[in-house]
């Protein structure tokens, strides 16, 4: 089928893109989307490894990776709820979604 190396490579690429985007974009929503991308890449890695290990189990039934991917999605949902709440307040206070403005805890 699909070799596990390809799945992991895709996961790594997606994670790197998400990380760099989170560090370089100035728009709040863009950063939130990049974080979601990182979470998705991690889910993909879990599922890919699950496929790999399931092949070596006799009955071929290993669901650990997939269950954990489900939990990652649940955590992501909660995180988005909170993040969007903070983001709404953030934008309402300043009138713009530029995160560079939020540097008041500077030395």
């Amino acid at each position: 089928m699909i070799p596990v190396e390809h799945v992991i490579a895709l996961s790594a690429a997606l994670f790197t893109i998400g990380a760099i985007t989170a560090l370089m974009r100035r728009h709040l929503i863009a950063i939130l989307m990049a974080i979601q991308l990182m979470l998705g890449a991690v889910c993909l890695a879990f599922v890919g490894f699950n496929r790999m290990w399931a092949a070596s189990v006799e009955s071929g039934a290993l669901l650990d990776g997939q269950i954990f991917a489900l939990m990652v999605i649940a955590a992501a949902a909660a995180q988005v709820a909170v993040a969007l709440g903070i983001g709404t307040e953030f934008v309402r206070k300043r009138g713009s979604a530029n995160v560079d403005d939020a540097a008041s805890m500077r030395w």
Partner: protein
Amino acid sequence: MNDYASSETLRWIPLVPLIAGLGQALMLFVFRRSISSALVTATSCGAALLSFVLTCVAFWELVGSASGAPAIIDRVNTWVGVGLGGTSFTADLAFVLDALSAVACLVVTTVMLAGNVYAAGYMSGDPHDDGGHQRFFCYLNLFLFSMLVLVLADNLLLFFVGWEGAAVCSYLMIGFWFGDPANAEAANRAFVIDRIGDFGLLVGLMLLFWSLAAVGEASVAFRDIEAHLDRIAQASVPTPSWLGGGIWPLTGVIGACFFLAACARCAQGPMVAWLPEAMVAPTPASSLIHATLGVTAGVYLLCRLSFLYASTPEIGALIAWTGGATALLAALVAGVQTDIKKLLAYVTASQVGTMFVAVGCGAYAAAIFYLTTHAFFAALLFMGAGAVVLAMDYEQDIRKMGGLRSKLIRVHLVVAVAVATAAGFPFLSGFLSRNEILLSTLHAEALPGYAVLYAGGLVTAGLLAFALSRLLLMIFYGQGRHPARIRSGMQDPGNWIILPLYVLATLAIFGGLLGLPQFWGDMLPGGVDDSNSLGNFVGRAVAGGAPSQFETSTEGWSVAALLACSLSGFLVALQLYVRRPELPPRLLQRFGGIHELLGASFHIGRAYDPLVRLVLGFSDRVLFRFVERRVIDGWIVSLPAKGVLGFVAHALKYGQSGMAQTYLFTMLAGTFVLLGYLLF
């Protein structure tokens, strides 16, 4: 020590006032809350009362102990313990109640109890608004604690703790009304002069320890020193060339050191200067701390070490002559003083000089008898004077008083009793105790110049009688010289002030019966054996034993001589100040120079100015400005603080950019570094 009875209760005698004093101090200085003055008074007087009761109980135990133990010891714990085996040294936190300390303890607690009640009345109307009521009683309780530790101490180290505590409380009391810088100045001076004595005490203590350790008996407990004194009696100290280069006997040097300590504390010799200056303290403090109890700490020290002084008659001569000279000169100076409290200060110095004469002649029991009676009538004198000052709206100059007999009836009564006792009215306690001392002087043939000392003692008695009678007559008799507004508002002080004075007056009158010399005891109807109960009791604990009996004829002549001197002093005062009041101003005109010299007490106080300046200057320039400000605040505190602040804070602050993305970058970078380390 094996035959001392042991007890668990002695430690509470000093502990009760300590708890009271510390409690008040904590509330005032740490928690910054004032307690109501009623509670302060109740705590303080309660502590004094409890100490007194416990002392009586302990005394009863001592006297009535079936085993006939010479002392009760309460060994609380080991306090200082160093060394191992043969070279070990321990000083215990232990309290000993033997005959000497029992008498001293009773005197201290009795007078302090009366003083506490008196102070409650006196300080309640204090016009100074520095909230000092609680502070005053705190100091008073701590002073009582120090005195009790001093008196009950088992060894010289614990004694020193009490000695210093008393000095500190004395300093705090002199500078009590510190708003006036003159009071603080007087407190500083008194403290510096007292430290001279501390030098002597410490040198003596160290010499004792060193010499005893050299013979293998390292200890500073009084009973151990007494037991092993003969082993160091042969030692001698080579003196350096700038002191004469001779060889002095060790016991003599030690005796001289402790004599210096007693001198400074008791304001004898050239160190008499601090006592009159200390009179800026509130009157209850003056009466308790300076007149009766603090100064008698020195006499107590000398009697505690009586076995030492019994073996060094030459130091005994030094003590006797210093005491005699101070007694005479102080009585002379007292006769021209116009400030009540300074006059009484000089009277006190003279009385303590008489005690020193007794110690020097080897009559330690007589000295303790005089100490006891002196405590009663001196406290009475000071407190009575305080009552007069209070009624006169804090006026202390006796030239501005006069004719108060009709207004201050009760005060007049107690002050008259005090003056009569101190001046030697026949058969009151002062007369009996002074006579004992004079007789011992007369019979101390081994003392060089004892006859001169005896004559000096008689003259002193006369001069004191004059000074005290003058005080009484100028205040209460004759023409009133004070402003009318004071006279109209004057009234006898309240019960809190008068009742302790009545108690003290009773003790002053009848206290002499405690140590009634056998001479009088034989004359009492029925003939009382061993009438000198105090002397016989104290004689158990001091060298020389009970006071010796003298021949009846000598006693008789001595009594007559003493009476004659006292009476003449009184008559001269009567003549000058009541019968012919125009005489003093004429005498003043003719003898103005001498009068001024005496009034300033030969300018002895000036001699200490360089020393005080030196000490305070050192304290300020070296200890405060250099050590405190430069070294501690600058180098030790600020430099590392600024260094740490400068380097770490200013360097690390750049990490705080405030932007979330920077932090995110740092987190990711750190994670990858860690992963790289773990994987490769």
